[in-house]
C-alpha cells in the first residue's frame, strides 16, 4: 500500500507560474516506490483541478487546453483522509475523483503561502507538509515577522510601516519621519508579499516617493527600512520543526542590480521550463557562499533560531543581509515555501531531493500526531442539556 500525496501548486498569486514549476519539481522527485502522487493545480481564480496531465509541465504551455482536459474538484474530509470531489457533481455515478493521505502545498506568495491554503488543509484534518497557518502568515507579513523575531532577540532592521490611507493623509510627515530616522538610501517593500516583487531602493526623496507608490500597488501596507551598505546577501535553508531543526549550506545570490528582483529571481534562464534547472534553482548564485567560516556558522545558527522562533516546520529559506565591511548581519525575510523547496541547497548539503521530501512528510505526520493528542472538542454536546429558550428569546429581541 502506498501513501497518496497530493501536491498543491499554483494559486491566486503573482508567483503563480513559479509555483507550477516548483510543484512539478516536487511531484517528480517524490519517491514513487513509497508514494502515489496526485497533482492538484490551483488556478488563478482559486479553483482546484486535477488530472494525469497536470503533473507534466508541458501541459501548461496552453492553459485553456490544459484546463479543458482537467477535472475541476473540491477537497473534502473523509474518514481521516481527504477526497477530491468532482465539481459540479454528476447526477449519477461516483463523484470521488481521488483520495489522498497527505497534502504537500508548494505554493508561493499571497493567498496561498500566507496560511490561506494551510487553513483549508487544517479544516480537512489531514497531515500536510510545511508550516502551519500561523507560521505561514508570519512568514508572509514582513512587519509581524520583525516583531516576533525582535521579541526572540534576533537581529532585524528597524522599519517604519504605514498604510495607504495614512500615507495619503500625511505624506510629508511620513517622508520626514523616514528621512530623520534612516536618511538615505532606504528600501521600500510591500508588507505582505513573497518574492521580491514591489521592492525597490530609494536614494533620495523623489525616488522614495516613486518606490512607495510602486509598493502600494501590491499591498495596502508598506514598510521602509534603512538599506544595508556594502551589501552581501546570504541565504540559508532550514529543515525540521520547532523541536529540532538543521541548516543547509549557505548560498550567495549574485545580481547585477542592487536588489534581487522578480526578473532576477525567477525569469533568468527560465526558458527551458520543465527541467529541474528551472525556477529558483537556475538563478545565478555562488554555492556554497564565499564567506568566512565564522560568518557562515553565525548565519546557520541564526537561521535555525529564526525558523524556530516563527514556529516553522518542513523546509524554509531564510535570507540574510550582511555588511561586508562592518560585518553587521540581519535576518531579512523567510520564505516558508521557498522556490524549488531549496532542494539545490540540500543537495549541496548532502540530502537528495527525494530524501528531503521524505523528511517533510515525516514532519507532517509528527505534527498531525501531536495535534491529535490535544483536546479540541468535548464528546458531550453542551447544548443538549440546556434550555434553548434564552437563545431564541435573544434572537427575538434582535
Amino acid at each position, binding site marked *: *500500500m*502506498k501513501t497518496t500525496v497530493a501536491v498543491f501548486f499554483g494559486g491566486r498569486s503573482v508567483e503563480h507560474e513559479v509555483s507550477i514549476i516548483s510543484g512539478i519539481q516536487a511531484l517528480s522527485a517524490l519517491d514513487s516506490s513509497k508514494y502515489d502522487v496526485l497533482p492538484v493545480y490551483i488556478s488563478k481564480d482559486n479553483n482546484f483541478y486535477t488530472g494525469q496531465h497536470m503533473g507534466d509541465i508541458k501541459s501548461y504551455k496552453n492553459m485553456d487546453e490544459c484546463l479543458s482536459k482537467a477535472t475541476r474538484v473540491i477537497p473534502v474530509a473523509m474518514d*481521516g483522509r481527504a477526497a477530491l470531489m468532482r465539481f459540479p457533481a454528476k447526477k449519477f455515478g461516483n463523484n470521488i475523483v481521488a483520495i489522498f*493521505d497527505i497534502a504537500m502545498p508548494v505554493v508561493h506568495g499571497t493567498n496561498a503561502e500566507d496560511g490561506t491554503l494551510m487553513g483549508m488543509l487544517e479544516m480537512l484534518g489531514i*497531515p500536510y507538509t510545511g508550516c502551519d497557518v500561523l507560521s505561514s502568515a508570519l512568514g508572509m507579513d514582513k512587519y509581524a515577522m520583525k516583531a516576533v523575531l525582535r521579541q526572540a532577540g534576533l537581529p532585524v532592521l528597524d522599519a517604519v510601516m504605514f498604510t495607504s490611507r495614512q500615507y495619503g493623509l500625511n505624506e510629508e510627515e511620513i517622508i520626514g519621519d523616514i528621512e530623520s530616522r534612516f536618511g538615505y538610501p532606504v528600501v521600500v517593500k510591500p508588507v505582505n508579499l513573497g518574492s521580491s516583487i514591489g521592492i525597490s531602493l530609494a536614494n533620495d526623496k523623489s525616488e522614495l516617493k516613486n518606490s512607495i507608490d510602486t509598493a502600494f500597488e501590491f499591498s495596502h501596507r508598506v514598510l521602509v527600512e534603512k538599506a544595508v551598505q556594502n551589501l552581501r546577501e546570504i541565504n540559508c535553508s532550514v529543515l525540521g520543526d520547532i523541536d529540532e531543526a538543521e541548516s543547509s549550506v549557505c548560498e550567495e545570490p549574485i545580481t547585477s542590480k542592487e536588489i534581487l528582483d522578480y526578473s532576477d529571481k525567477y525569469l533568468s534562464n527560465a526558458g527551458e521550463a520543465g527541467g529541474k534547472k528551472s525556477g529558483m534553482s537556475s538563478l545565478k548564485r555562488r554555492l556554497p557562499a564565499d564567506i568566512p567560516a565564522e560568518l557562515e556558522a553565525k548565519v546557520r545558527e541564526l537561521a535555525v533560531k529564526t525558523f524556530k522562533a516563527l514556529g516553522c516546520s518542513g523546509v524554509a529559506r531564510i535570507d540574510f543581509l550582511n555588511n561586508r565591511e562592518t560585518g553587521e548581519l540581519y535576518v531579512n525575510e523567510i520564505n516558508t515555501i521557498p522556490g524549488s523547496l531549496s532542494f539545490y541547497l540540500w543537495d549541496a548539503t548532502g540530502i537528495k531531493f527525494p530524501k528531503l521530501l521524505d523528511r517533510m512528510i515525516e514532519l507532517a505526520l509528527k505534527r498531525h*500526531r501531536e495535534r491529535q493528542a490535544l483536546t479540541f472538542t468535548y464528546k458531550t454536546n453542551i447544548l443538549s442539556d440546556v434550555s434553548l429558550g434564552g437563545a431564541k428569546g435573544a434572537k427575538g429581541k434582535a
Partner: protein
Amino acid sequence: MLEIIATVVLFAAFAADCFLLSLHFIHMLQLNSYRNERYLRWMKENRSAIINQMGWLLLATLAVSCFLIQPTDWKVRLACSILFLLHGYLNIPKKAKKPLVFTARVKRLYATYFLLTALVAAAVFLSGMLRISLGALFLWAALTCFAVLAANTINGPIEKKIAGWYVEDARKILKSMENLTVIGITGSYGKTSTKNFLASILSTKYNVLMTPESYNTTMGVVRTIREQLRPTHNIFIAEMGAKNPGDIAEICELVKPKYGIITAIGEQHLETFKTIENIINTKFELADSIPQDGIIFLNGDNEYIRNRQTGKKAVTYSVNPGSGCDYTASDISVSREGSRFIVTAPNGESCVFVTKLLGAHNIQNITGCIAVAHTLGISLSEQVLAVKRLKAVEHRLQLLPNGYIDDSYNSNPAGFRAALDVLSGFDGQRVLVTPGMVELGEKQYELNRELGSYAASRCDYAVLVGENQAPPLKEGLLKAGFPEDRLFVAKDLNNAIAIVNSLPDEGPRTVLLENDLPDNF
C-alpha cells in the same frame, strides 16, 4: 371490510412484536459473538427471564387455539392485535451498556429472520385465519429466541464465506506494508489500558494504529485493518482476547506480531477454559508466534507468567525492585500530582516518571509499555512527557484535582483493597467514603466486614454511606481497632460530603470515593 382491516392490523401488530422481541435476542446473539453454543448457554442461564418474557404468549397460543378450527371474526383478530402490541410495548429493549450495533451482519440476520416470519404469516393467511392459525402466530412470537437462532444457523455458511473474504483482504493489506511493525497484547486483564498507554507513548516517535475500544477478536482486528490502517502507519497494536484455546494463535497467524506483551494471567473465563493451564497456554500462543528476532514482554510479577519458559527472547518487567526483572519500577510514591516512580532499564539507564494514574497495576502496565518503547528506540527521558499525559479512565481510581480519588465504578473486593492500598500511600488526612460493596450474594455481609477490617489501618476517617449498608463495614472497622469517633454514617452522598468538609484541618486531605456513587458527583 372490518375483517380486512382487522387482518391488516393483526399482521402489523404481529410484525411489530416480532421486531421488538428479536431486537433483544439478536443483541444477545451479537454479544455472544454470533456463536450458537454460547447463545444457547446464555439462554439456559437466563431461562426464567425468557419464560417470564415470553410465557404469556404461550398462554395466548393455548387460549386462542382451544377451538382449533373455528374461524375468527374481526373482534378476535383485533383482540389479538392488542395483545401483540401490548406485549411488544412491554418488551421494548432497555438502554444497554453495550447496545446492539446494526452492522451489515445484523442486517443480514434481520433479513433472514423477517423472511422466516413472513413465511409463517403467509402460511397463516393462506390457511384461512382459523383460530389455530392465530395460535401459530403467537407461538412463532413466543419462540423468537429460537427463530433468531434458526436465522443465524441459516446465515452461518454465508457469514463464514464473507468473514473469510474479509480476513484475506486484511491479510493482503498487511502484506503490502512491509515496514509495519505489529505488536500483540494479551492477558486476562489490563489489555485495553496497556494498549492505550503503549499507543500514547509510541506516538512520541511513530505513527501508531491500535485496535479501538475493546476490539480483540479476529474480526475486530480485521475490521481495524480494513477500515483504519493507512500506509503512513509504522506500528500496529493489536489487542488479542481469548475465550477458547486457539483464539490468540488465530489472530497471530493473521497479523504476525514481531513483539508481544502478556499483561497478566488470572482465572477469568475459567469456565470455558476448564483449567488454569489452558488459560496460560492460550495466552502464551502469543509468545509461540513471535519470530526468532522478535521479543515477548512479560509481566514478571505474575507467577503464572514468570514460571513459564517461552524459548523466545523474553524481556520481563516488574514493580518489585528485587525481582531481577529487566525493567523495574521502584520508589513508587503517591501525592496530589499522582504517582511518581523510577524505571531502570537493563542498560542501567534510569529515569523518574510521573503519572496521574494510581495503583500498582497501572504502574506495572506502564512499566511494560516503557520497556517496549525503549526497545523500539525511544529513550526513557523522551517518554517522560508521554507518560505524564496518560489519562485515567473516568471513575476508575481517577485522581481529581481537588484531592478526591474517584473509584466509583469499581465493583469487586479486590479492587476495593487495591484502592485502599493507594489511599494509604498518601500523606496527610486520608478519608474513605463508601457505601460498601453490594450485589455480592450471600457472602456480602462477611466480605464487607473483612473490607472494613482491611480499611482500618489505611484511612484516618471513614464515612459510610447508607444506614442499611453501614453495619458490616462498621463492625469490621471497629473490630480492627478503628477509633469510633472517626467513624461516621451518612444518609446519602451529599450528607457524606458535608461530613468530609466539616472534618478538622489536618494537612492535605485525600478522599477515596469507593464504589457505586452517582456519576455526576
